[in-house]
């Protein structure tokens, strides 16, 4: 017997049924949104298998708000955040993993503090800071509080610590300086962690809403999440079907990426979570 507690027979059937019921329940709201978005408004609450499929709702939504600009903004935001995070977190993680210096433990504790006190809850003061710097309503203002990520530093530090010292020393013997060693030895070996962190970061910042909502006020800076909210909360009575279409539109890039790279996504989230 290899797996003595694996259910079989009636037990397995029961478990499968339960799992499928829950899965259907979980997917139901999304399936509903898809149905509504792809059918004319009069079918948004009626389920008629013969209802005509149309893309009209998407056309209306796309014309009603500057979604193209919002997508560009989100794309810029996500790339800016990720690029800065990768550089800063790599440097800091390298220092924590391989350098001995006074105050290192205190510095590390100060970094970990951000895991509990995230930028999300410091919105009032961060807004004032952005005002003082004079960059309110810009993409860098959305990105800045998240750039030095405690999570990223922690994750990369753990990865760097597993690199054998011998590789480090071998590179040094060949004449590489500290940064050369970092680029030639540590970064390539931590590639899976970079992929994992990248996916988590991109999906977090693609989805982030409250801070961008507060700090932006113009079309030029708004990411899609805020754009979607501005669009769907106007008082001019927009059809539900159009809102559903807009909702699907804004999530589509992420959803498609997720469906294509499902395994990587799941593994990345796992890797990022296990310490």
């Amino acid at each position, binding site marked *: 017997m290899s797996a003595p507690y694996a259910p079989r027979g009636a037990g397995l059937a029961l478990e499968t049924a339960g799992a499928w019921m829950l899965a259907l329940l979980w997917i139901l709201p999304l399936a509903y949104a898809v149905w509504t978005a792809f059918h004319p408004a009069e079918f948004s609450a009626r389920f008629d298998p013969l209802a005509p499929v149309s893309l009209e709702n998407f056309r209306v939504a796309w014309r009603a708000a500057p979604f193209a600009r919002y997508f560009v903004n989100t794309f810029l935001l996500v790339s800016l955040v990720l690029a800065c995070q990768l550089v800063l977190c790599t440097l800091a993680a390298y220092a924590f993993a391989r350098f001995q210096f006074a105050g290192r433990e205190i510095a590390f504790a100060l970094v970990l503090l951000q895991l509990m006190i995230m930028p999300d809850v410091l919105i*009032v003061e961060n807004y004032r800071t952005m005002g003082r710097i004079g960059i309110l309503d810009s993409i860098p203002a959305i990105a800045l509080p998240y750039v030095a990520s405690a999570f990223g530093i922690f994750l990369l530090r753990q990865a760097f610590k597993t690199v054998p010292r011998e590789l480090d020393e071998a590179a040094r013997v060949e004449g590489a300086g500290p940064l050369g060693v970092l680029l030639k030895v540590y970064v390539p070996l931590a590639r899976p962690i970079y992929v994992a962190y990248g996916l988590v970061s991109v999906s977090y910042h693609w989805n982030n809403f409250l801070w961008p909502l507060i700090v932006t006020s113009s079309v030029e800076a708004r990411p899609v999440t805020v754009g979607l909210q501005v669009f769907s909360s106007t008082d001019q009575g927009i059809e539900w079907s159009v809102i559903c279409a807009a909702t699907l539109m804004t999530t589509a890039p992420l959803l498609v990426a997720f469906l294509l790279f499902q395994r990587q996504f799941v593994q990345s989230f796992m890797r990022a979570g296990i310490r």
Partner: protein
Amino acid sequence: MRRGVEAIYGWLLLLPAMALLALFTHWPAFATLLASLYSTPRPRRPAAFVGLDNYHAMLADPVFWRALVNNLWFALGTIPASIALALVMALWVNDRIAGRAAVRMAYFTPTVLPMIAVANVWLFFYTPQYGLLEQILGLFGVPAHNWLGTPSTALACVTAVAVWKEAGFFMIFYLAALQQIPPVLAEASALEGASRLTFFRRVQFPLLMPTTLFVLINAVINAFRTVDHIIVMTRGGPDNATTLLLYYIYQVGFTFWDSTYAATLTMVLLAGLAAAALGQYVFLERRVHYR
């Protein structure tokens, strides 16, 4: 490398990250404390030191108490439910059921979607008369009910959305942990004649403890910072029935523009998060054995 040189390198490497952390985490946390001791500057009245006045005002503010109680109920609703569901999902998906890849995907999909987008979908789901929930309940003869518009059910509705969003995320961690339990343990307990329930209670669950702790911390933090769906679905209403702490901070800070009172409220949130961190450290760390 000589010690002095190494220290200089170390600090130089840290400098950019530490500077930004100081500017956007440490300073604002401290500035929040300072701001909470002052009055909000108004056009003709500059900020003045008022000591604990903001705190007294807060204690006398019924909306603050409402938000705090709501948030505790929200936490109490989301944390155990999402963790339990995540565990069940992971146990199911870990077994060889038919189509488990599809099932796993169904559970996980809400996690990758923006809360703001799925909140729109759920808003429609809960819509009176022609929302899906009303239609399904109507089939069973349940009378019409405005789920989000009634104070007694609104909080439960937004709680359900948060559970739906989170459970699949936590499932991933349980799944990873379950797969790391050596199969030998199952064989040994089977030889001892333990039932599946006993095996779960005495072997699997204790071995999952570190994961449970990790998930628990995440769930606690999320319970106090998830407000996107409140903004979309209820705006704290009806009658403050769904006002959570962070949402109230947002409202006070950016609708009423009372920044020092918002800072005072933020202090409560920070204190709560600090207490959670400390509690986890003191109480749970001892009972959980790490690998």
